[in-house]
């Protein structure tokens, strides 16, 4: 028995991986070509449930704390467990105290310890918060890594068109199409996110650094080949059009205030994604007419996809055993 998963963003691929791990046959279809996923490939890839708790519900921490282990098990070597550093520019230092008050799992560290952790930030900040239990990964490597891993397990992929005959062979369906599902789900809304990828060999970071600012908290996450992802805006809009000047200025300004050498970095890419979100900004696993869906991952795709994939896989496995019982094929 094969399950058809619609959508090859982080939700669909995590579900495929979770089902494959449980020995269930899977086919994945996505109407777009690679790169994978609209919102997912623009993600920061931070597995940072303690930091996110500053402005998210408790569930983000409960569901997200095992995410790094899940990704590590699926894609050995892709997860970097170096924690997260949170800093604030001098005059916004009150923001650091506020952030500390609202989160757990951190230590307040001084300039010497900052210099040990991130030598390139030496002397730039007097205090920081260090969340040593957090991790990060490169979303695009993780997505294509999942595709390769699944293909090696004989999972079939259909990109760039309707699933067509793929659906004929599949007994069950799962919908992981993200914001595209909003036409059928009135609770789902789009939250626009804009990001930049910068490249400079002058700076290296070993972990994502969050910069607190009263108006727009941003992060700089290190990627391979001297690249850095700077993100991300949160605008209540489902428009996917190009990045605006103001957003780009704000993101560049934040990177520049983290380290002036970013002023000479190359802007390699700008990106825009529309995050699917429910009113409480928490994801949901739903069942509609027998179709299981994962949606509303908001800004927590890589962090919460594993927990949602487990929940959805439980439901699908129940459906399978129900069908097998009815068909009399169950031992």
């Amino acid at each position, binding site marked *: 028995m094969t399950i058809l998963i619609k959508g090859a963003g982080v939700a669909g691929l995590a579900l495929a991986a979770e089902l494959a791990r449980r020995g269930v046959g899977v086919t994945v279809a996505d109407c777009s070509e690679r790169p994978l996923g609209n919102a997912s490939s623009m993600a920061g890839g931070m597995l940072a449930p303690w930091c996110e708790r500053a402005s998210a519900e408790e569930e983000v921490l409960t569901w997200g704390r095992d995410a790094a282990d899940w990704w590590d098990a699926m894609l050995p070597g892709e997860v970097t467990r170096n924690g997260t550093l949170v800093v604030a520019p001098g005059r916004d230092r009150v923001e650091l105290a506020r952030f500390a008050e609202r989160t757990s799992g951190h230590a307040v560290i001084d300039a010497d310890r900052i210099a040990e952790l991130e030598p390139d930030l030496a002397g730039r900040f007097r205090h920081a918060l260090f969340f040593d239990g957090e991790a990060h990964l490169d979303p695009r490597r993780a997505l294509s890594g999942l595709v390769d891993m699944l293909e090696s397990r004989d999972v079939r992929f259909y990109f760039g068109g309707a699933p067509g005959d793929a659906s004929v062979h599949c007994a069950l369906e799962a919908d992981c199409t993200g914001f595209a599902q909003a036409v059928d789900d009135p609770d789902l809304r789009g939250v626009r996110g804009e990001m930049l990828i910068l490249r400079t060999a002058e700076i290296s970071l070993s972990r994502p650094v969050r910069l607190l600012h009263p108006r727009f908290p941003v992060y700089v996450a290190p990627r391979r080949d001297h690249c850095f992802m700077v993100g991300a805006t949160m605008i209540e809009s489902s428009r996917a059009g190009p990045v*605006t000047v103001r957003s780009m200025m704000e993101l560049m300004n934040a990177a520049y205030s983290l380290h002036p050498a970013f002023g000479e970095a190359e802007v390699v890419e700008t990106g825009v994604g529309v995050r699917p979100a429910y*009113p409480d900004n928490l994801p949901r696993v739903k069942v509609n007419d027998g179709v299981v869906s994962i949606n509303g991952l908001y800004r927590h795709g890589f962090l919460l996809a594993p927990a949602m994939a487990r929940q959805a896989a439980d439901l699908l496995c129940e459906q399978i055993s129900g069908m097998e019982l009815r068909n009399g094929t169950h031992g």
Partner: protein
Amino acid sequence: MLELYGRAISSRLLLGTANYPSPAVLQRAAREAGAQIVTVSLRREIAGGSGRVGGFWSLICDLDVQVLPNTAGCHSVKEAVLTAQMAREVFGTNWIKLEVIGHHDTLQPDVFALVEAARILVDDGFEVFPYTTDDLVVADRLLDAGCRVLMPWCAPIGSARGPVDKDALRSLRAHVPDIPLIVDAGIGRPSHAAAVMELGYDAVLLNTAVAAAGDPVAMAKAFALAIEAGHLAAGAQPLEPRDVAVPSTPVIGKAVFS
């Protein structure tokens, strides 16, 4: 009861809609505060788009409140006027909270551009709620332009400092006794809101103080209570401070027996 452009309003707490942890928390906070008017920005949200009302706005509309669109993020007369006109299309209201920012860091209003934009919008049929300073002359100019409500700051936006110049607020109140005055920016705590209401202000508009609180829903309630308390107190003729102690019961050896 408070009347704003002919509309009777029972809640003196106006709520901004930015920076909440989620729209669900915003909805609960607005209900807990009993807010009847919420203000929404759309400069960035509809930029380059079709002007279609998105998912967030339909959640606001679910609240069954009067929407007061604002021109937050506008730095010129032209931008503010255009944003106001778009807001009228999107939300179907003539109300506009007019903000023209003069300084991008402190978000201090550009009062010159504000007066000019107010005149254009009033002539175009808008009912304008101008975000202004506590300056009396600017207040007069805005009234000349046709504004019938004023929204002075009590401290810079988001600073949470509370009323930094009570004398200025008091003299503005005395200067325009019949115009509804809504404190628009700078409130951090319920005690600040109570203090400006005690000065005889008509209402308070809050955003960051509620949205960025650890528990926005509880904070919304706390503000609603404080605003109500301050308003009652203003009508109950509070005592003025005195330089010496004045005991409430006679003291032996003084007054009665001397």
